């Protein structure tokens, strides 16, 4: 970008951002919106909470989201790999498992996470099955996220493996590598590069979807903001929750874009 380019892009940014800000600031309902959504005092109060008024901290709520997605992501990586491995297997003995794995990925990519949340969160406790029926909403939430997202991630893994040209497999087998060694030394190292960006994308949506456990009554950031809003009749708590989610996801989305651009440049430069 030359000097003129820099000036032009700076100018257009100022104009566009200024216009958006002006609409927001001068709209007839502007002051009302600012009061209900962007009240600095109330935003701070929502963030830290106030036990005397029965107000839960949105910030503390976020800790629940944090451990939920960390745990789910680890489980998703493992379960997704298992399902992908079954779907990619060739052995006739595993045929029924392949059918099950295919059904699994079809079903859980098709049913909205929110519905699975209701079914698991309200269904399992009704079973009266001891351990299975006694868990906290957050634990059911993790189970649901793991179940749903494993279906997506399994397909991401599978696509990654299938993206490696067949000639690589033939060449690896021709130097005497076993099926396992071929996977480990040749196919997977190449698949990983294709898999990481879509995997991180799925993780960003998983992080956001931790908000869905609020429907089961788990106290996480969104639910704390809702309670705050119902008590104080002000939505600034939602803004706080939104900002906190952004702080969590933006590093991940930026990093994903960086990896994609890096890979693209490599491909354009190489071969």
């Amino acid at each position: 970008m030359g000097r003129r380019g820099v000036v032009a892009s700076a100018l257009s940014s100022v104009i566009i951002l200024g216009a958006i800000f002006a609409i927001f600031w001068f709209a007839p309902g502007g002051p009302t919106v600012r009061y209900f959504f962007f009240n600095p005092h109330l935003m701070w109060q929502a963030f830290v909470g106030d036990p005397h008024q029965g107000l839960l901290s949105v910030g503390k709520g976020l800790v629940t989201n944090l451990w939920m997605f960390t745990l789910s992501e680890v489980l998703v990586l493992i379960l997704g790999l298992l399902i992908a491995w079954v779907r990619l297997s060739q052995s006739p003995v595993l045929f029924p498992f392949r059918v099950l794995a295919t059904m699994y990925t079809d079903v859980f990519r098709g049913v909205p996470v929110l519905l699975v949340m209701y079914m698991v969160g309200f269904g399992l406790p009704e079973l009266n099955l001891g351990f299975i029926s006694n868990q906290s909403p957050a634990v059911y939430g993790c189970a649901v996220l793991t179940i749903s997202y494993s279906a997506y991630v399994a397909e991401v893994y599978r696509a990654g493996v299938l993206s490696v040209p067949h000639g690589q497999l033939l060449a690896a087998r021709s130097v005497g590598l076993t099926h396992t060694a071929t996977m480990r030394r040749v196919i997977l190292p190449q698949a990983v590069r294709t898999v990481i960006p879509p995997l991180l994308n799925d993780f960003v949506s998983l992080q956001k979807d931790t908000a869905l456990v609020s429907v089961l009554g788990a106290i996480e950031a969104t639910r704390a903001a809702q309670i705050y809003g119902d008590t104080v009749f002000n939505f600034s708590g939602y803004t706080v929750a939104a900002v906190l989610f952004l702080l969590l996801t933006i590093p991940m989305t930026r990093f994903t874009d960086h990896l994609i651009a890096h890979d693209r440049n490599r491909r354009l430069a190489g071969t």
Partner: protein
Amino acid sequence: MTEVVLELAGVVKRFDENEVLRGVSITLHRHEVVCLIGASGSGKSTLLRCANLLETIDAGTISFLGQSLQDPRIDPDLVRHHIGMVFQSFNLFPHLSVLNNILIGPVYSLKRRRAEVREEALALLERIGLRDRADDYPDRLSGGQQQRVAIARSLAMRPTLLLLDEVTSALDPTLVGEVLDLLTDLAHQGTTMLIATHEMNFARDVANQVVYLDSGVLVEQGSPEEIFDHPKHQSTRNFLERVR
């Protein structure tokens, strides 16, 4: 004559209804070079893949050093320790350096010590004139260089038999020579090879036997003089007419 390395007897291969090899019999002795010629789709690649068990056959037998490869007790991975294969599209491993491409077989199939094989691999690279490219990645090399590395990767396993599938077809015409020269060297050193090729002059120079395949049928086989100068069958003549 010397020991029989590879013997195909009445080999039949089908893909669903499509019969791709129809009772092919070929015998290959140690230090012999056999060239497979035939139109596109005649079954050359399929035959080579059957020979190292990348494909299973539907009838007939293939034996290697007198041992039937259809014996269920045979471990295909072990058979492939002794039968190398080089492909039209090189198929080098793009995530590994040139040196590691060559080491992967000896280290992970033969379980030999990396330090020990390294010297051999470097000597191989020396021999193909690419000693200084050992640490480069394949996408930095020209097609001809990549194919030479692919040949070295097979040789590092010290195979008894080398299968080569149109290894110059994907190359720029200016790069064909360097690869054919290497193969000619190998032939002179007594490497046993089964080569599918469209390079008729090369076949005439190096082959002990030439085999002409047409739609999966072995139409004619013999010395290069017999096949190229005095073909007996009309379809062989037509084919040679077309490729000249």
